[in-house]
């Protein structure tokens, strides 16, 4: 069955302080899609996200489906080492229901401990009272994801979900996002620099370098021409070498 379109963008342009950042983008997203946005630094990927969230003025049209809860995880966070804010207080900015908080933290796999009783005890008695600033990169990322799913969003926007995480952790974060997407029937937009991730998890991709260079299924549109237009020079070696079913 054909899924409903939940976002339709037509002829979108964004100009900030006299500089054209995005030019004439048109694309759509269907419910349950994973749309990846790739492109070099300064291509306007983060600006596109913020524009979709209504934080920047734009020309053209952005039409979201009705009654959608859209959540966003930005790329940069400034959490001072001394910031007196516990993980519980941070979660409560979103939702005061302790049961939901514990459940969300369990579902992002905050602890390796698989025994249900133990993990609940660990979260309630230790983790929630810990300072947010004392979390490691990977743990913080999971906490942010838990935070973002607390109010059951329909759409998640992740800006480089893996920056600041080591390679091993990177794959797991994408697995987690994919797991949550399936469990909660969410639509995911993500910005990524890693084309392998795009091939593995996304069913649509936008190649962006101020204007749209490609849009479609990754294995169809990410050809050497598009990649060299995107990153410049001969980058056909970037093409993934492992097989896919």
């Amino acid at each position, binding site marked *: 069955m054909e899924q409903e379109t939940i976002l339709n963008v037509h002829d979108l342009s964004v100009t900030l302080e006299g500089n054209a950042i995005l030019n004439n983008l048109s694309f759509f997203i269907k419910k349950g899609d994973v749309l990846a946005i790739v492109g070099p630094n300064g291509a306007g990927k983060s600006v596109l996200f*913020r524009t979709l969230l209504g934080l920047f003025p734009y020309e053209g049209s952005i039409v979201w489906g009705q009654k959608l809860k859209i959540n966003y995880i*930005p790329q940069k966070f400034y959490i001072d080492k001394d*910031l*007196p804010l516990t993980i519980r207080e941070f979660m409560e*900015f979103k939702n005061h229901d302790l049961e939901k908080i514990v459940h969300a933290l369990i579902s992002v796999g905050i602890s390796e401990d698989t025994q249900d009783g133990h993990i609940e005890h660990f979260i309630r008695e230790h983790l929630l*009272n810990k300072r947010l600033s004392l979390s490691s990169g990977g743990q913080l990322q999971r906490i942010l994801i838990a935070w973002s799913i607390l109010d059951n969003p329909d759409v998640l926007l992740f800006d480089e979900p893996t920056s600041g995480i080591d390679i091993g952790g990177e794959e797991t974060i994408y697995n987690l996002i994919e797991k949550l997407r399936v469990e909660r029937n969410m639509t995911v937009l993500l910005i990524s620099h890693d084309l392998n991730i795009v091939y593995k998890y996304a069913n649509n991709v936008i190649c962006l370098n101020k204007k749209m260079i490609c849009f479609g299924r990754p294995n169809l549109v990410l050809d050497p021409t598009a990649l060299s237009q995107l990153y410049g020079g001969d980058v056909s070696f970037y093409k993934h070498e492992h097989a896919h079913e």
Partner: protein
Amino acid sequence: MTAVLIGIGAGYLGAFMILRRMSLVGDALSHVALPGIAIALLLNINPFIGASFALVVAIIGVAVLERKTTLPSETLIGIFFTLSLALGLILTPQPDLLEALFGDITKVSNADLYLTAFSVLIMLLIIPRITKGLVLGVISKDLTRSLGIKINTINFIFLLLVSIVVALGLKVAGTLLMGSLVIIPAAAAKNLSNSLSSYSLWAMLFGAVSSLAGILLSLYIGFTPGPIIVLVSGVIFLITLFFKSENN
């Protein structure tokens, strides 16, 4: 009593000022109050009104200049606020200068007490409502905006509250020292706290204790309370610093 209430209000607001890296704003704002006080004295009206007026003009002025120029707000505050101190020093009538600079709690009236109690109550009601925006705004502005929180509005309300507490506190600590009463108790509280709730509570408590102990001490040794209050809060800060290094 008035001083204790101001200590509570100043400590609470100071807690958020430190989080938002605005420590020096309180100091700068208290300087701006001086020309306001001076003009009020010259016109023979209540100095609190003059000070509040000057502060409101100052925060609106900085907000406007920040949008119209590319100068960072620290630079604006640095220029704007020292200029007003200079202007205030020239304008303030000599006999009142010492009181304006360092405060004199013995001149606080009942009306001042009621005004202070009312204002601090308002603060205690408003701050919890904007806490989420204030704290998330420090962590990520984009995230905060994506939740539909209007950061600029919240900042403005916050600065307005800071101006009120500074204006109220001028009688206690004076234009030169009021900034410290906002910042030091909160800085001490941060040394001891893991959570936002304990941080705000300690900040209020330290603000109140500094004011009370400072006044009692100043009565005992017969010196102007303002500097003593600030010194007491400084001692509290040093003590908490010791606990902080133990925690780490």
